[in-house]
């Protein structure tokens, strides 16, 4: 009896003393499954660097990161008939200094983020001028991505480094700041670390999951916004972003990691580049983009990895038809479709 009691106490002590954080190293995806894409032909718009693609109902919008005439182009889906372009680059009050991402709300309005102006502009369907503007709080430094949480809230990361992301209201004011950058190596919460940990995000309101992926490392972060909790922080084989502090700025020296993420109903998709800056330095003709599509479950457990025949920058998933619509900037046909 005494032995059992002693054993019981020992096990409990060990389990409490050694309990780990909610972090783990990514398990191997194993051999990836190679898939071949089908280029979707269209000839109406020239794009320099298509980086984001979103689909809602019968509308597809592409964001050109380095757009010369317009940043966004709207097409019908799946026919890909050109409809219009909007968000003209320029320094005027109705023009854009840059484009970071586009989102849709339930009413089908477009929300476009201009980081250089710290502004989210709202476009109604079939109107080329903005119908509303949301000026982001002065407390936020350089917000580079966003998503719509609900009718009154957006989720935004920023460069202050104090928190992992913030929730802001329709007036652009911070209502809540959440978590911290999950760096194991660097405990300084500053701008340099935030620059190195620049991440792309996606939120699915149906399951409440926010996914963030690092551009300069292999880290997938999953948060439950409904429960305000960390689901998992998954560190990949290439680890967290590597950088050197150069004059108070983060200069990356590791790898190009993820460039886009999509939270589906049951799965999370992320496109991974995996190229080191050293390789890019040696071979400047390396293709831009990643050819690895990693699929995780909603807890961050790897399910499978697709090896694409093209290198893509951004993508969206048509879950109904199990299709991937991706953007390839290396060829003449930017739209590529994959059957998953």
């Amino acid at each position: 009896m005494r032995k059992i009691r002693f054993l019981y106490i020992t096990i409990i002590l060990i389990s409490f003393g050694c309990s780990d954080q909610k972090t783990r190293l990514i398990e191997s995806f194993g051999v990836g499954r190679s898939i071949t894409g089908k280029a979707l032909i269209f000839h109406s718009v020239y794009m320099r660097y298509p980086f984001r693609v979103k689909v809602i109902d019968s509308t597809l919008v592409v964001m050109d990161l380095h757009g010369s005439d317009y940043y966004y182009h709207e097409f019908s889906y799946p026919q890909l008939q050109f409809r219009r372009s909007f968000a003209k680059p320029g320094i005027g009050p109705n023009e854009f200094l840059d484009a970071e991402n586009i989102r849709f709300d339930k009413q089908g309005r477009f929300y476009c983020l201009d980081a250089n102006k710290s502004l989210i502009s709202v476009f109604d369907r079939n109107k080329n001028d903005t119908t509303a503007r949301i000026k982001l709080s002065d407390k936020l430094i350089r917000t580079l991505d966003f998503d719509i949480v609900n009718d009154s809230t957006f989720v935004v990361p920023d460069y202050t480094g104090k928190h992992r992301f913030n929730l802001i209201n329709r007036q652009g004011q911070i209502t809540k700041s959440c978590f911290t950058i999950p760096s194991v190596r660097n405990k300084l919460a500053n701008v340099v670390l935030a620059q190195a940990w620049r991440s792309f995000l996606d939120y699915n309101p149906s399951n409440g999951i926010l996914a963030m992926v690092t551009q300069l490392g292999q880290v997938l972060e999953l948060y439950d916004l409904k429960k305000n909790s960390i689901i998992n922080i998954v560190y990949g084989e290439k680890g967290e972003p590597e950088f050197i502090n150069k004059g108070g700025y983060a200069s990356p020296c590791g790898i190009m990691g993820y460039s886009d993420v999509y939270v589906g109903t049951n799965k999370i998709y992320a496109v991974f580049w995996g190229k080191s800056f050293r390789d890019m330095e040696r071979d400047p003709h390396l293709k831009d983009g990643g050819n690895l599509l990693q699929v995780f479950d909603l807890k961050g457990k790897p399910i499978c990895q697709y090896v694409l025949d093209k290198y893509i920058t951004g993508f969206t998933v048509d879950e109904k038809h199990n299709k991937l619509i991706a953007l390839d900037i290396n060829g003449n046909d930017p739209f590529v479709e994959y059957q998953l």
Partner: protein
Amino acid sequence: MHQNYIRIESELSQFFYFFFYLNALNLQNNYLSLNPMRKVLYSLAVLVVFILTFNFTIVSKHVNNFGSLALQNIEALSYAETAEPVCYGLGSIDCPTERTKVLWISK
């Protein structure tokens, strides 16, 4: 918050130490009735468990109680003496100095 999360865990473990220490006192009579060899073995086992788990607590506290002055000093030392980074090409990396998207930032 991530750091607070670790701190809460370490405080939790301390709480359980205290709780089980009290329990151990209650088991004193049973302990005294054991033969000397078993007493030594049990004592050693408990000691090992305590050392292992206390080590975790100390490490966690050490990380989180880092003074802000110490952090600022490390930050100041880590600043490179070289100039700002230089950005090249057309890409998707956010250039910290030019507010454009570039292919590459010099080391």
